[in-house]
C-alpha cells in the first residue's frame, strides 16, 4: 500500500534530503509557472490589500487533486479549533471579527543568512498563488477537504537562506488579547495553552513541496477564523500542527517547544503525523468522521499523502508520535 519514494535517504542525512526536496519544489514551481504564464499577474498587480471574503485569484494545481468532494464553505468556516478566540468550535467564527489581519508583519529569523521582516502583502507576491485541495484531519477524529490558496513554504525559506546548522522551523501565532479574546486572563479562562501558540517542523518537512504557506481558501482571502492573514497547512499531520495567524518564523538547531506538546506531552507529540495505527491515549485514530458524512471512514496513513513516507524512514512511529 505504501509507495515508498526516496527510500535510500537515511534519517541522519537531513540536510541533503532537504536540499533534494527543495530542488524538487523549485522545479515544480518553475514548471507550474511555465505552464501557466498568466498566474503571476493578478497577485503582482493587486493594488489594495485584500480583505477577508474578497476573491483571491489562484491557479488550481491539479497535481494535488483528490477524488474527495470539498467540504461546504459554511462548515469549514464555522467549525474551527482556534483557541485564541475560545475553546468552542463556533467561537472563532462568532468572535473572529476582532482580529485585524492588516497591517501585518512576518518576522523570519533565527539560523538564516538573510533575516527579514516582511509585510504580509509582500509575502503574498513572492510566488504565483496555487489552489490545492488538501484533506485536513483533526486529531479529535474529524476531517474536512479544503481548497487552500498559497505557495510552498520552501519559497519563503529559500529567500532567507537557512544556515547549515538550521534543523527545525518554529512558527509563532500573534499574541494580542485585544484581538484574540481567548488570550485574556480571567477567572474562567482556559489555562491549558501557553501563548504564543507555537508549532514546529523539521526543516526537511518544512521544505517538502506539500507544506503550503497559505493566504486563502475557497477562492477567497483567508477568513479570520481560519488563520488570517497567513498560516501554514501541512496536510499529512494533524490539524493543530498547521499554525495560524503567523507573526514569526524562526529557524533553529533544536526541536522547537510546541504548544500542545507542552500542554499534554503524552497526547500530542512533536511529529503528530496522521497515523491510524497509533492511537491517541484517550481515543482511537483508526477512523474519522468526514464533516458532512454520517458514517465514519477509515483514516489513511499520512492522511493519504504517501509521498512523505521517506521523511520518516527508520523512525519508530509509535515512539515518535
Amino acid at each position, binding site marked *: 500500500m505504501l509507495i515508498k519514494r526516496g527510500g535510500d535517504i537515511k534519517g541522519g542525512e537531513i540536510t541533503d534530503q532537504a536540499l533534494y526536496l527543495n530542488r524538487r519544489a523549485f522545479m515544480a514551481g518553475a514548471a507550474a509557472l511555465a505552464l501557466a504564464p498568466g498566474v503571476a499577474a493578478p497577485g503582482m498587480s493587486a493594488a489594495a490589500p485584500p480583505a477577508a471574503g474578497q476573491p483571491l485569484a489562484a491557479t488550481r494545481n491539479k497535481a494535488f487533486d483528490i477524488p474527495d468532494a470539498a467540504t*461546504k464553505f*459554511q*462548515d*469549514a468556516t*464555522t*467549525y474551527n479549533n482556534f483557541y485564541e478566540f475560545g475553546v468552542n*468550535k*463556533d467561537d472563532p467564527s462568532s468572535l473572529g471579527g476582532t482580529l485585524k489581519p492588516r497591517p501585518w508583519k512576518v518576522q523570519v529569523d533565527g539560523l538564516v543568512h538573510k533575516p527579514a521582516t516582511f509585510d504580509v502583502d509582500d509575502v503574498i507576491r513572492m510566488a504565483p498563488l496555487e489552489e490545492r485541495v488538501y484533506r485536513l484531519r483533526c486529531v479529535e477524529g*474529524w476531517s474536512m477537504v479544503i481548497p487552500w490558496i498559497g505557495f510552498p513554504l520552501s519559497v519563503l525559506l529559500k529567500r532567507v537562506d537557512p544556515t547549515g546548522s538550521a534543523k527545525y522551523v518554529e512558527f509563532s501565532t500573534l499574541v494580542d488579547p485585544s484581538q484574540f479574546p481567548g488570550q485574556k486572563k480571567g477567572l474562567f479562562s482556559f489555562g491549558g495553552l501557553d501563548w504564543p501558540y507555537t508549532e514546529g517542523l523539521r526543516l526537511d518537512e518544512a521544505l517538502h513541496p506539500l507544506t503550503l504557506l497559505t493566504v486563502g481558501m475557497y477562492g477567497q482571502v483567508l477568513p479570520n477564523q481560519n488563520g488570517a492573514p497567513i498560516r501554514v497547512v501541512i496536510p499529512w499531520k494533524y490539524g493543530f500542527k498547521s499554525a495560524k495567524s503567523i507573526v514569526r518564523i524562526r529557524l533553529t538547531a533544536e526541536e522547537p517547544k510546541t504548544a500542545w506538546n507542552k500542554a499534554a506531552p503524552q497526547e500530542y507529540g512533536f511529529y503528530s503525523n496522521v497515523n491510524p495505527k497509533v*492511537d*491517541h*491515549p*484517550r*481515543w*482511537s485514530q*483508526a*477512523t474519522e*468522521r468526514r*464533516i*458532512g458524512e*454520517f*458514517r*465514519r471512514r477509515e483514516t489513511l496513513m499520512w492522511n493519504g499523502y504517501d509521498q512523505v513516507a521517506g521523511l520518516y524512514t527508520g523512525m519508530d512511529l509509535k515512539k515518535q508520535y
Partner: protein
Amino acid sequence: MTRRGRVALKVVAWAACLAPLGWLGYRAGTGDLTANPISFITNWLGDWTLRILLASLAMTPLRTLSGWSWPIALRRLLGLFAFTYASLHFCVWLVLDHFFAWRQMGGPTSR
C-alpha cells in the same frame, strides 16, 4: 413542606431536567447542531449528565448544611435523570458515532 409544595417542586425539577433535551430537539429542528451534529449531541448529553449528577449529589449536603428537608425530595429524581442522560449519551456514542464497532471503541482504552 405541604403536599402541594412538594408537587410544585417536582414539576419544576422535571421541567428543568427535560429542558436540555427540548433545547436539543429545537436545535435539531432548526438545523443548528453545528457541522458535526453527532459530536455535538454526544457532548451536549455528556455535559448535562455531569451537571445533573452534581446537582443530585449536592442534595444531601444541602440538607445537612441548611436544615431544609426539601432537597431530599429531589435527590432520587435528579439521580434518575442523571442516569437517563448518561444512558442517552452512551447510546449516541455507541450507535450513531461508532455503530457498534467495538474494536475502535475499546482499542485505546484497553491499554
